């Protein structure tokens, strides 16, 4: 129930309650003073982006150095030299293999057979039973 004080104050405050304050540039002032917000996710992605840019920069510098140092002929000679060396090694092996004497240790044969006949089937069985 409203008493006399309530009624008096409601009458007097009625206009004040309807009062609307015009913006007059207040919102612009607030927006100008807002701090920049950086959350952890944004900060992390910024670091990630910087790291990618740095990698790109380093790759660019390396490619330029390679180009100016005439790196391609050097690389080509290394590759062709390596290829030639491999071919020579295979050739020597193929020529000498039939005449090379190989000493076969019986224990080595036993271990190899044990590996192939026991260990491999056992491991295969274990893997299959775990999957099924």
């Amino acid at each position, binding site marked *: 129930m409203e008493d*006399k*004080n*309530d009624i*008096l*104050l*409601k009458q*007097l*405050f009625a*206009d*004040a*309650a309807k*009062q*609307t*304050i015009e*913006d007059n540039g*207040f*919102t612009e*002032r*607030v*927006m100008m*003073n*807002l*701090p920049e*917000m950086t959350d952890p996710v944004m900060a992390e992605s910024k670091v990630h982006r910087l790291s990618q840019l740095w990698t790109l920069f380093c790759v660019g510098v390396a490619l330029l150095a390679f180009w100016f140092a005439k790196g391609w002929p050097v690389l080509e000679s290394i590759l062709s030299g390596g290829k030639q060396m491999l071919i020579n090694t295979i050739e020597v092996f193929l020529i000498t293999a039939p005449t090379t004497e190989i000493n076969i240790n019986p224990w080595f044969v036993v271990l190899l057979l044990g590996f192939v006949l026991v260990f491999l089937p056992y491991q295969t069985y274990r893997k299959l039973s775990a999957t099924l």
Partner: protein
Amino acid sequence: MASISDIALVTQVAVFHNKQAFDQLVRKYQSPVRRFFLNQTLGNEQLSDDLAQETFIKAYVNISKFHGMSSFSTWLMRIAYNVYYDDVRARKQTYDIEDSSAVRQSANNGDSNIKMDIHAAMALLKPDERTCITLQLIDGYPIDQISKITGIAENTVKSHLKRGKDKMANYLRENGYGG
């Protein structure tokens, strides 16, 4: 509960840091927030605008803490209330004395403006009483909402309202209002 448009705007601000969305929130709520401070500071426009600006900046910085359990306006007014009381505490030595005496002086100079008389009457109130009175009579908040905004128990809010209204009504009657 918060209105859907407010929640949509808050989400835009909190997730995408969309300043345009926050601009809309400021435009929508600048009037009640500035009016609240204007009444608390007894008509000091410069101080009211400074406090209102601080309120909106705090709201922007802490927007991710708004979970939509209450309306956005209640949450915002809660920040405004805290900003005001931080300021009151900071100015404890001079604030009430200077402002109250200035308003009383202008009221005693024969200014018949109702607004000035209301401010003079409000100057008689303690800060908590003034806050409860303005939140109810000007902003139209019910007692439970005032309790949420101020963090004061509902029964204490009722006591503040009763005492504040008695003081103001007596002052206004002495000055020729209410017959």
